[in-house]
């Protein structure tokens, strides 16, 4: 029982990076842009997020607000990368899949290069302390699983209904869904398709950068080349799994996070398989899940992956 609580208590904070990146990717895809560069943007975010507290404190204790600055700057840099991807895929209308791979290599490469230059080896930072919610964290079992994490965990899960509200109840959300579903109709209604796509890409980039910074500041409390480990790609897969809906994406993020946390509790569970099999588990689950969910792609934004050119008749 203890081990089960342990696993579940890890699952919740570990799902945050996937959740944030995935919600960002959801905004991109709802606007019709398939951004495979999520992994690269997360790498940059993770590096920037770690660099700021590290530079200020030299690896020692830093005032809390420098961690916040790290998170904010990481999301700003992420937004700039989203903007860059917009220039390539929205303005120049480059094919999104291959351009995304380019962005991923570019981002991971820059993060690795700057990390080696400014930090050098593995350096830990104090990171964000956990902040149990008074009273609520005292509830047996549930308190430990849900209410004794750092502040970012609560904020991220609160963001799920906010994202739902933005996407389905605001006029901006309607615009995003319109340009991702039928850009030509949206255009004739006076919506600036490219501008909306740019905005969605910047929101998505900011969330991906924030997700990366969460990994380095709040979860691992350090940066390394293997920190992201395909979470950016899993986040893209989660959007398919979650049918482009924030609530289902949250459930998906928790599920994948569960498969990831099992590898840290292998010994407690008394499993004797080599640890590699547990590390590969989430990736195997992604492939299986994709195989079963790709059939019902009717829910996908219809203009997903298609660039819009208002000067060409189709």
């Amino acid at each position, binding site marked *: 029982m203890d081990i089960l609580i342990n696993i579940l208590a890890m699952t919740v904070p570990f799902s945050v990076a996937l959740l944030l990146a995935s919600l960002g990717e959801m905004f991109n895809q709802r606007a019709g842009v398939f951004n*495979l560069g999520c992994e*690269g943007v997360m790498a940059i975010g993770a590096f920037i997020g770690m660099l700021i507290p590290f530079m200020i404190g030299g690896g020692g204790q830093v005032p809390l607000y420098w961690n916040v600055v790290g998170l904010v700057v990481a999301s700003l840099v992420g937004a700039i990368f989203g903007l860059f991807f917009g220039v*390539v895929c929205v303005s*120049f*209308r*480059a*094919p999104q*899949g*291959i*351009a*995304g*791979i*380019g*962005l*991923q*290599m*570019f*981002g*991971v*490469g*820059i993060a*690795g*290069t*700057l990390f*080696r*230059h400014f930090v050098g080896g593995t350096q830990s930072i104090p990171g964000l302390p956990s902040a149990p919610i008074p009273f609520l964290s005292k509830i047996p079992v549930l308190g430990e699983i849900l209410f004794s994490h750092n502040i970012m965990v609560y904020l991220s899960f609160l963001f799920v209904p906010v994202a739902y509200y933005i996407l389905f109840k605001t006029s901006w959300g309607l615009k995003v869904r319109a340009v991702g579903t039928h850009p030509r109709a949206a255009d004739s209604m006076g919506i600036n398709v490219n501008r909306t796509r740019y905005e969605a890409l910047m929101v998505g980039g900011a969330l991906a950068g924030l997700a990366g910074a969460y990994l380095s500041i709040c979860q691992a409390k350090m940066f390394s080349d293997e920190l992201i*480990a*395909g979470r950016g*790609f899993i986040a*893209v*897969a989660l959007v*398919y799994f979650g049918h482009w809906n924030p609530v289902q994406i949250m459930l998906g993020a928790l599920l994948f996070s569960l498969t990831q946390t099992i590898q840290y509790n292998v010994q407690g569970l008394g499993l004797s398989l*080599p640890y*590699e*099999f547990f*590390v*590969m588990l989430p*990736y*195997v689950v*992604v*492939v299986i899940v*994709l*195989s079963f969910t*790709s*059939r019902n*792609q009717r829910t996908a934004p219809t203009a997903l992956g298609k660039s819009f050119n208002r*000067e*060409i008749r189709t």
Partner: protein
Amino acid sequence: MNNNFKLLYKLSIIIIAILATLIISSAILLVLGANVPKTFYTICIMPLTKMGHLTEVLIRAIPLCVIALGVSIAYRSGIINIGAEGQMAIGVLSFTAIALSFPELPKPILLPFALLMSVLGGALWGFIPGILKAKLNVSELLSTVMLNYIAAQFYSFCLRIVMLDPAEKVNGSGTPQSMRLTSNIELTRLAGRLHTGIFIALVLAVLVYLLMWKTTYGFKMRASGAQSRAARYGGINVTWYVIFSMILSGAFAGLAGGMEIAGVHRRAIEGVTNNYGFSAVVVALFGGLHPAGIVPASFFFALLIYGATLAPRAVNVPANIVQVMQGLIIIVIVTTQMVLSNAYLEDKVYRMIVKNKKEVK
């Protein structure tokens, strides 16, 4: 619109693209506080100055060329294979498994047999995303990346436990690597570490050209990639050609893995794939998805990859800079292609220039 203008227009766009790449790379180098001209010299020119460097460049060009040929086949058939990294790792494992199991077989049998197994291993790993794409419409971009991670973990498991060098167990150092393979499985070396695999790569380039442009099979594959719906109406079994192109693509990556062990490392070690799988995507695009372009492109990128390994010592720039440049080059290539094929933009620029001229008169 005259032809002179068209040529000039295309040329100037390509020059702008090259300049953009150089400017962005230079900006990153400036952030690192590096000497920009000296860094470019170290990466692009220094490896050419010594014979020892040149052979090292060539051994990196071999896997790049072979994998990029496979990637280009898949790309032409409408599927982007970024899983070459995993397919190569499986190729290495299959090759090593055969080499360790039958060390006493004579070389003319053992070497082709082991290479064939590496081909089959890679083909199997390429077949999985191929069939998922064709039958279940799973995005190959995601499935190949996931299979990369799965292969990497499986590779690490095999090296650490199944194929671990007995000597490592005795010494207790526990470096995850296989035993040194027997000499009857080695590809002959020509100079330095340069091995005969270079001829295999060149022959494959010719074969890929013949397959894709001189046979109906290749035509059908390219048709499935260019216009899959039209191809289907034309009676081409698109599903099969998608799967087949992924099998071929994986087979090439697997072969590259086998040759890398037989020619260069001679034992399965960690990090043998060395990001070749991703670099090969850049090579394939840079080479215009045509063997005649891929061969020089693979040499050029091998130069960058090897040059970048010299950079940390020579100019204090981390070797990861090559990954930055590769990512940048992909983005610039796809963007440039779109601009070049945009006839409307060309027309607009032309009219703008002509109008200006008239005003001057």
